[in-house]
């Protein structure tokens, strides 16, 4: 049974009975999850390693399509539209993704990294438009002042935290509806982590954010709503504040009080 205490009006994402298995004989890594994700809010997905949180996240922009053995069942709707009806190219422009380890393209400059989405898709823009997108995206991630004089240097020269903000800027360049972040601060030091967290809180005014984290204090600090997953099941989903103060499920309580995970 799922304790879903969350009613969401006009959700940006609706997940309906989603199951994912890594091959057709394997146990479900994500098991019949249904949830609605609030617009312009940060939704955290937490749970111990192997609970299926990243697998759930990667289903949202259909990253699983890259691996033919993976079996996905159920549906996800983006603004009411079934994502399986949208081409992955278009879908991934509407849903940006940031990964666990900062992964700017090592062969590209900072500038090219930001507009990599356009370049990779073969979209030609006028230079003014390009400059504008780069500047706006870098300002959005509070990196502009730090890199505006070295835009044409390789992105890999930046510090880890700067690289991760660059990767967020890269995801923002298409002005997506949703940004998916898969443990974006797990490779960063505390100072860089808090910068990224502040940034996410700021970004939710413009974007809807889904954040996978195994750091529950991070979920408590910045998320509006939280999902707790365990062994592929969505155990509990609710407002972060109430989940952290009065968890409904015993497993959630045990996880949040550090009994496991």
């Amino acid at each position, binding site marked *: 049974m799922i304790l879903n205490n969350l009613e969401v009006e006009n959700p940006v994402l609706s997940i309906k009975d989603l199951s994912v298995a890594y091959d057709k004989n394997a146990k479900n890594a994500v098991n019949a999850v249904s949830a609605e994700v609030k617009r312009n809010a940060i939704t955290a997905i937490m749970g111990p390693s192997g609970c299926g949180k990243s697998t759930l996240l990667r289903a949202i*922009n259909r*990253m699983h399509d*890259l691996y033919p053995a993976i079996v996905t069942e159920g549906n996800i709707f983006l603004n009411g539209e079934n994502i399986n009806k949208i081409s*992955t*190219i*278009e*879908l*991934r*422009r509407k849903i*940006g*993704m940031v*990964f*666990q*380890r900062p*992964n700017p*393209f*090592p*062969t590209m400059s900072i500038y090219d990294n930001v507009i*990599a*989405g356009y*370049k*990779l*898709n*073969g979209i030609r823009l006028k230079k003014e438009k390009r400059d504008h997108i780069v500047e706006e995206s870098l300002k959005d991630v509070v990196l502009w002042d730090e890199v505006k004089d070295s835009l044409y240097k390789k992105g890999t020269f930046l510090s880890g935290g700067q690289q991760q903000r660059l*990767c967020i800027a*890269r*995801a923002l360049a*298409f002005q997506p509806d949703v940004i998916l972040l898969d443990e974006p601060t797990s490779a960063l030091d505390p100072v860089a982590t808090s910068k990224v967290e502040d940034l996410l809180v700021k970004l939710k005014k413009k974007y809807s954010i889904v954040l996978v984290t195994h750091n529950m204090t991070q979920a408590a600090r910045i998320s509006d709503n939280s999902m707790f997953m365990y062994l592929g099941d969505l155990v509990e989903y609710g407002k972060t504040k109430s989940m952290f103060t009065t968890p409904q499920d015993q497993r959630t309580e045990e996880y949040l009080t550090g009994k496991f995970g």
Partner: protein
Amino acid sequence: MNSEKITKGVLLVASFLILIITCGMILSLVSGSIPVFNEFGFKFIISTAWNPTEDKENYGALPFIAGTVITSLLALIICLPMAFSTSLFIGEYFRGKWYSKALGTMVDLLAGIPSIVYGLWGFYVLRPFIVDLGLSSQGYGIFTSGLILAIMIIPYATSISTEIITMVPNDLKEAAYSLGATRFEVIKSVVVPSARSGIFASYILAFGRALGETMAVTMLIGNTNIIPTGLFDTGNTMASVIANQFGEAEGLKLSALIAIGLLLFLITGLINAIGKFIIKKFA
């Protein structure tokens, strides 16, 4: 006696022996080529003469250097598109599929075939084929040798390139996919640029192998001591002239052959060092 000391001693002796053998070889190559350099000086390298007649002896290495470089470059040009496509096929496009693994094994098998077998095949199959096509009257020459060399170096370039391509981190590729890139765009804009220097180095190493290949080339190049001017001209490479003439060489001629050997050693050594340096920098 403790085993620690014995192990250390054995390792030391074995390593030292290798060092002595290498130094000895270089030393004998250098000392063997001294007579010809004394006689002709560095003109030996740029001279096209090859006259073993007594009292009129005159030797130059240029035709062989030219033959070596031309056949190897031709082989490299033919090998490039083949090795590049095959390494993308095995390392990226169909990575992990059974037919990719089978193809990889075939490529490795190709690398294991002895040079003489390639030569034999080239002599009895490829050469008559070239004649049938009307490209050359006897089928010997630069083109035939270059073609056989290309087949011989494709496995080297392919297997190193494949390894480099599979080393491109998955999270870079996923980052590109997450931006809506297609497979082709990911390969074009992420995989190949990231693997660029390693792929380049694999061709340099393959080129180094082509320079030194002896047997198959000796059987197919036509063994004439002139600078080839066309694709279907005959010629000689540094390795093939040594293989062809060492049996009847003595005195100054032997010294000339040894000097050619020394030059070949220096050139391939340099090419290999460059290739390995680039790979090391990449990794």
